[in-house]
């Protein structure tokens, strides 16, 4: 599978960029045309200067006319310089913008199995630094085209005027291009080495700051300082290595054209003495040589950038070519709607097999049946598979065998949107978005009224603390906003699920981060929400078990016993064992009321 993907990437390496650029064809053409006008202005200047010297200064003939023409050509090339730059950058930014949106949309649609395997940082750099590389390359497209046009036309003009002098003047210039390419390819690894060392220093700083209690406790400051000094020395060393590469190439690139200028002075000077060249032509040769330096230097860089952009495109293609494994069925069925007085939300797991990896089964012939409105607590040890049940129910993963149905409809036949709206999950770890409290609660329905939001918050026992926040429901949360305690976050998550009003609710250890003294408040909130709603409680603590009507004991991927808490407690030895382990963990984590951790 990886092989086919690699092949596809190779085939479509440029196809993606071509397709994106195709939509910008008109503006890119305009940019290139402007570039050609720019080229005309630039090329005219040295020619007019030459005539100005010969006619205006040497022959004293209408010197201000020639000066005026030079100025006019200068203004034209200035105007077109600005426009060329503007169009080139604008189009490149637009390419970047479009690609980033495509990438983001695709990442959000990718199956959770993909996200389990990929690192956030990797995906982030696809949509930031990789797109930067592409952007830098797209800028160069119209600019390089007009630069090339300029190089060719200047060479032709010069060759027509004086072939020998052209050869002398331009001979060193290809070396500029060559040195530019060599420079780009040798500075790149050096820069990467610097970044690598910087990352290593960052690791030392990071572990020091996070482990400051240990360091202070043992007075180990000098150990960390010694580590940091090593890293700081390394950074200096590799940075100076990089500087040596710059020192080698940059002055050479800068000075190579001077060789052409010297040649023009020597050979051209003799020609002027012979009378085969005018002084004005000599000067315009001189200016033409300087004119070609920047474009040639850029051509060298464009090639290096093109290579880097190609690598970036390949990495982006890898993401875009990944087909979401979980997607809508071709002809989605809809869930039955409420008819007269029959309740909704029956769930059935029938002979479900599942493993995250091929060689490790997490669920084995898992069977579970819930009538509409029934609540059940899944109890089991670590690794029993109980948390996986919720992930299969909302199709984060597809079961390897067996069937899962909601109200008789196999979940694979439902549109993902409908399935996930029907099942509300309160996750173990609560994620809040960088938005207001209200928006975080109204996550399922951004158009929800303030009353609905407040009602959900009240039910989740969150209203009171929300009113105590600086801007109440408008308080900004998330990384850059106000930070809430674990229990508060949990209650926001519950409110979020309440507002979604799903026909099936899944609570995964929803109280683990809650202060013990608040736990009963949340439990009562939860039992209000669960009332009459099909609920699966994934219980990690004894207290939560009481919320559900019945208990299913999960062990090694199967339900091994079902019944009420009291019944299982009386009849099942394994249940007592799991419960005892759970109580231990519970007590260690928080202690009985009042003896919590501080």
């Amino acid at each position, binding site marked *: 599978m990886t092989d086919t993907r690699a092949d596809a990437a190779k085939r479509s390496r440029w196809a993606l960029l071509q397709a994106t650029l195709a939509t910008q064809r008109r503006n890119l053409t305009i940019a290139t045309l402007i570039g050609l006008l720019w080229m005309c202005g630039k090329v005219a200047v040295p020619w007019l200067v030459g005539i100005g010297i010969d006619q205006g200064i040497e022959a004293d003939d209408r010197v201000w006319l020639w*000066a005026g023409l030079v100025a006019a050509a200068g203004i034209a090339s200035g105007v077109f310089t600005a426009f060329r730059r503007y169009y080139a*950058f604008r189009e490149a930014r637009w390419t970047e*913008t479009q690609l980033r949106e495509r990438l*983001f949309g695709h990442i959000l649609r990718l199956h959770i199995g993909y996200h389990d395997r990929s690192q956030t940082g990797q995906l982030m750099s696809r949509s930031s630094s990789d797109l930067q590389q592409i952007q830098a390359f797209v800028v160069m497209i119209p600019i390089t085209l007009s630069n090339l046009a300029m190089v060719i036309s200047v060479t032709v003009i010069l060759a027509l005027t004086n072939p020998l002098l052209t050869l002398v003047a331009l001979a060193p210039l290809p070396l500029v291009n060559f040195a530019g390419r060599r420079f780009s390819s040798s500075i790149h690894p050096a820069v990467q080495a610097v970044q690598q060392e910087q990352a290593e220093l960052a690791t030392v*700083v990071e572990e020091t700051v*996070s482990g400051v209690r240990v360091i202070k406790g043992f007075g180990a400051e000098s150990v960390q300082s010694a580590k940091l000094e090593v890293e700081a020395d390394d950074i200096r060393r590799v940075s100076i290595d990089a500087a040596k590469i710059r*020192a080698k190439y940059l002055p050479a690139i800068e000075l190579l054209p001077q060789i052409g200028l010297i040649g023009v002075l020597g050979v051209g000077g003799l020609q002027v*003495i012979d009378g085969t060249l005018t002084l004005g032509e000599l000067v315009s040769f001189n200016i033409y040589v300087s004119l070609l330096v920047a474009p040639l230097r850029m051509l060298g860089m464009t090639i290096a950038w093109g290579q880097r952009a190609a690598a970036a495109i390949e990495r982006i293609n890898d993401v875009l070519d990944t087909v979401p494994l979980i997607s809508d069925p071709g002809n989605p069925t809809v869930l039955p709607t409420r008819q007269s007085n029959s309740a909704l939300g029956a769930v059935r797991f029938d002979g479900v097999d599942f493993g995250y990896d091929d060689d490790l089964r997490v669920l084995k012939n898992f069977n579970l049946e819930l009538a509409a409105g029934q609540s059940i607590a899944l109890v089991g040890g670590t690794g029993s598979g109980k948390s996986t049940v919720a992930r299969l129910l909302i199709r*984060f993963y597809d079961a390897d065998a067996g069937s899962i149905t909601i109200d008789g409809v196999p979940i694979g036949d439902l549109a993902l949107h409908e399935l996930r709206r029907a099942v509300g999950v309160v996750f173990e770890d609560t994620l809040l978005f960088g938005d207001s409290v209200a928006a975080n609660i109204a996550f399922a329905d951004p158009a929800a009224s303030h009353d609905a939001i407040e009602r959900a918050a009240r039910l989740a026992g969150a209203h009171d603390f929300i009113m105590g926040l600086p801007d109440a429901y408008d308080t900004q949360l998330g990384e850059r906003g106000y930070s809430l305690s674990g229990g508060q976050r949990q209650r926001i998550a519950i409110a979020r699920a309440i507002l979604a009003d799903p026909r099936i609710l899944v609570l995964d250890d929803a109280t683990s981060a809650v202060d013990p003294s608040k736990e009963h408040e949340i439990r009562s909130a939860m039992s209000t929400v669960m009332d009459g709603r099909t609920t699966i409680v994934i219980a990690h603590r004894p207290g939560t078990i009481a919320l559900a009507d019945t208990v299913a004991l999960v062990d090694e991927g199967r339900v091994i016993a079902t019944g009420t808490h009291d019944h299982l407690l009386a009849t099942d030895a394994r249940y007592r064992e799991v419960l005892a382990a759970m109580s231990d963990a519970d007590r260690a984590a928080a202690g009985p009321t009042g003896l919590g951790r501080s």
Partner: protein
Amino acid sequence: MWGMSAIEEEDRLDADAAKQVMRRAARMAAPFKRTVLSAIGFTAMTTLGLLMGPVIVRYGIDNGIKPADSATLRTAVIAYIVVVSIVYVSSRQQYIFINRAGEGFLRLLRIRVFGHIQKQSLAFFDRNKSGVLVARMTADIESMAELVQWGLLQFVSAALLLTFSFILLLVLSWQLTIVALLVMPVIVIASRKFQRDSNAAYLDVRDNVGSNLSTLQEGITGVRVIQAYAREPEQTRRFEESNRGLFRSHLYSLRVSTWFFGLVEASGVIASALAIGIGGWLVNRGDVSVGTAIAVLLLLAQLFEPVQQLSQLYNTVQSSTAALDKLFGILDTTPDVLDGELALPASGAVVVSAVGFRYPETKSLVLDDVSITVANGERLAVVGATGSGKSTLAKLMARLYDPTAGTITFGGVDLRDATIDSLRQRVVVVPQEGFLFGGTIADNVRVARADASDDDVRAALDAIGALDRFEQFEEGIHTEVRERGSRLSAGERQLVSLARAALVDPAVLVLDEATSNLDPGTEVIVEHALESLMGSRTTIVVAHRLSTIRRADRIAVIDAGKLAELGTHDELLALGGHYARLASAWASSQPN
């Protein structure tokens, strides 16, 4: 968008503050004075050499070409070759010297700031988010790298080029200098406007990049919640909004900067045109030679690029000054836990008398008038509810903070009067979680005593009965623990953490009992390790488990910052107060 004004304020210094920062940086760079001077010397040489080009051309035209003297022309060509060779050599040297100085300066800055951060007390780390401290040490210092690598050099060479050119122009012809003076003001005014606008645009772009990245990150890390609530379309729409915002700010920045490049380009050519016009007039009046007019023309062509470079440098200089200012802010923070002068005795009682504590900038007391004497060799369990202050009391006993009232002494010496070194040898805190650093198991144990040999490390591991477990690894105690110790289990991490304490062999042990759950097998080993570590040492343990509490000699119950009860298990039960209530709540929660 309230974030934006904060960022601008933080990142923009007024001219006075910027000057002060620069002066201070210059003082700090004093050790590199000679290197910097050499760099400037080479830069001056390079610049002068580059300016010689037009002068040599003038000489060649006026003395070689015009009088048809090919020998003089040859001399000019040879002189040109010599000058270019010298320029190449000095130009290489300028890069090397400026980088040597600059990277040396950054290295010094890294080491100093880090050393200073480490000198701060825990209170400092409570106040400053870890992300901010890491950013100071990385992004802020790295933001200066660009300046160091080529910025300073470009700045100096552009400034020198402008000055030298002006002088050269005056020498060549004062009349033609007017040409430069006619065009320069336009460029100067334009570049000031460019600086202002592009700086604002730069900040705007940076702000947009930041919020775009955080929307992106939120989308990726929150993908499970987003998919569970079927919010993909809405989230994509929100991302598009921020993405388009970023695009618009890029466009704005383009608009305010692009005209400037055109203007510089046009001005350069207009200056040449003026040189031809005025030069032609002067040549024909016989005031200047053709060679001079041409030399001025060529000089002017070189003059406009540095101006453009200087304006582009402006943003780099500004953000570097802002970064330096933040770093100096850290260097200016005086550590609030200072070293004393006395050595602590080998053993003694820990006496807490009338201790009060409050965190800086808060009103409520965390601890209030607490007095306890822990006898030499005694084991004291500290219990209390969440937020009662029991952990703070433990931290004060190890002088991770200083009490705001009262004193804590060991063997009669106030902890504040003791040297930090002797304090760390006598009193050791073992944190709840086994925090591991990058490196091997041995490196991690050695955190406690840098000069310990491998045998010392083995002995420490052996003392807590954990040596066998680690020797089983292929590379034994030299096994890399990987990032944050991910190679080891939670229990093994705790063992390493306990071995650190054993390596120090302190008189007093302060334990914050681990609350995380371990698998039963490891649990036994860790408990055994703890027990052998405590041995007959004076131990203060912040306890969460009944078993630990019952094994203590005495129990201190902290309630709302006060010492509520103190005594043995039986005494406190008999007292029928806080502890009795806690104990009965505990008993009733045991599984049936």
